[in-house]
């Protein structure tokens, strides 16, 4: 992945100095206000990149990150917690260094409304934040009514664990109290959803836990799709590590999960009801509620954006990135959100300093764990085209790699996690 160098940022600043037309912020006030809604990976990287690029380009930016949670538990690597391979503390982080090191204002509150015309955000505590540019990175929400009977009360019985934190803890507790010989069922949604390989990684890592402590347990995956990313790698790993433990049923066989019976602990498909001891419902998804409320999403539930700047195609002046955005071929993943955030921050600084936005470098980097010492990786590069974001190149781990190679990929994954979260929260 190409990174911003000091020289590139310097040239962007020099361009700003040469601009003939006075940039808007020079006319309006000395400091441009950028408000970032959502303290996930997309929001954090945008805020920090705005602070860095802003300082380097000479643009004086006042960056505020609005996030009600005090701590962030990463969804990525949370399946390792389910496997018993990581504690929840090692995947949870606080925000204090964002203000201490980068001077970002942290507003520990929830944003409730966006006034796109008046350029204002309303917070739950009644405060109103005015902005010159707004970044909306609310992550995902679950589509109401997509699975009949699956409401907030049901989430406490059949956790989704698709936002990391309490839900992840709940699912782990349920798996721990499940008897040996029990059945763990996972309902997987149709595309698109957050982190495409994660449901299957979850099955793999829960199987890793079962193999040690409940060797007679079974896992049943009821999919909303007929195939999935890295399927051959997963199925090969399941045969090698957990023979006979994991069964995957495609949508063409079951018709997909349409309803849940919370009391009976069952997943209901058009043809059959599947009862299990522990049920994990990963519901169909859409852009986070704030994006819906702000009118940034289309009928399909996601937010259309410019593929280079991530500016909303519905409301100019507002940028949407991460899982909430319709980013074409890019998967909804933390790494993708991170490269989108850098592109978006560079575009915002360019606009505020009156220069042309640089060509974005969009990429994906994904590690998937199959067992404690068996991981696979994929690296992809994307390009912004007129028709949206397209895949330009991809490399994926192969079938038949040696155990040594897979151990090495696992080590690379752990090193990557330390470096990535260090940059986010350090």
């Amino acid at each position, binding site marked *: 992945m190409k990174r911003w160098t000091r020289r590139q940022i310097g040239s962007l600043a020099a361009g700003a100095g040469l601009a003939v037309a006075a940039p808007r912020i020079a006319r309006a006030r000395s400091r441009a206000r950028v408000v970032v809604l959502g303290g996930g990976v997309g929001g954090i990287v945008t805020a920090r990149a705005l602070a860095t690029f802003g300082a380097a380009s000479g643009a004086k930016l006042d960056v505020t990150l609005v996030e009600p949670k005090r701590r962030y538990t990463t969804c990525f690597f949370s399946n390792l917690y389910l496997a018993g391979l990581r504690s929840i503390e090692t995947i949870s982080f606080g925000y204090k260094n964002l203000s201490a090191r980068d001077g970002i204002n942290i507003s520990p509150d929830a944003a409730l409304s966006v006034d796109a015309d008046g350029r204002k955000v309303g917070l739950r505590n009644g405060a109103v934040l005015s902005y010159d540019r707004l970044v909306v990175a609310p992550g995902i929400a679950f589509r109401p009514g997509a699975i009949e009977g699956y409401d907030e009360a049901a989430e406490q019985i059949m956790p989704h664990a698709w936002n990391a934190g309490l839900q992840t803890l709940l699912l782990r507790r349920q798996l721990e109290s499940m008897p040996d010989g029990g059945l763990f069922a996972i309902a997987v949604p149709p595309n698109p959803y957050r982190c495409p390989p994660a449901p299957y990684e979850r099955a793999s890592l829960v199987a890793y836990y079962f193999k040690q402590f409940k060797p007679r347990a079974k896992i049943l995956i009821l999919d909303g799709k007929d195939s999935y990313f890295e399927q051959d790698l997963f199925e*090969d790993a399941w045969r*090698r590590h957990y023979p006979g433990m994991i069964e995957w049923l495609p949508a063409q066989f079951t018709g997909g999960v349409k309803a849940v019976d919370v009391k009976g602990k069952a997943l209901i498909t058009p043809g059959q009801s599947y009862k299990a001891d522990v049920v994990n419902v990963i519901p169909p998804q859409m852009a986070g509620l704030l994006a819906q409320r702000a009118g940034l999403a289309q009928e399909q539930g996601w937010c259309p954006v410019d593929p280079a700047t991530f500016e909303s195609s519905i409301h100019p002046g507002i940028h949407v990135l991460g899982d909430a955005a319709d980013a074409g071929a890019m998967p909804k993943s933390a790494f993708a959100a991170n490269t989108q955030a850098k592109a978006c921050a560079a575009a915002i600084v360019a606009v505020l300093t009156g220069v042309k936005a640089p060509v974005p470098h969009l990429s994906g980097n994904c590690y998937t764990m199959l067992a404690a010492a068996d991981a696979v990786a994929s690296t992809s590069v994307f390009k912004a085209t007129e028709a949206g974001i397209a895949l330009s190149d991809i490399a994926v781990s192969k079938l038949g790699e*040696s155990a040594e190679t897979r151990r090495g990929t696992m080590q690379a994954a752990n090193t990557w996690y330390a470096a990535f979260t260090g940059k986010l929260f350090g």
Partner: protein
Amino acid sequence: MSDRMITPNFTPLPRVQIPASARHDEQFAVKILITHPMETGLRKDSFGEVIPRRIINTFICRYGGEVVFSVDMHEAVSANPFIEFFLRATDSGTLEFEWHEDGGAIMRLQHQLTVT
């Protein structure tokens, strides 16, 4: 030193989905699925040795003891073969499903159909 990835003997998992009952003369869908890698015999492992062929080569469905549907499968059929076909309900009786694997193993499932 590189070590080989060993694939133990797996157990294929067959599944059938059909309605429990159907009206006389009604056409009903039968969906069959078997979790199976359909190893082609054309791949090599990390030591360059050929992984032996192991596929489901035949599927047979009997209704009241009579073959009503069968399929021959070859290497090009994808993993986890899924087939959907339709039958006409004539009499209440047993539907038998058989998957024949290379090496002679046969996986069987049975379903009772009530015709009303």
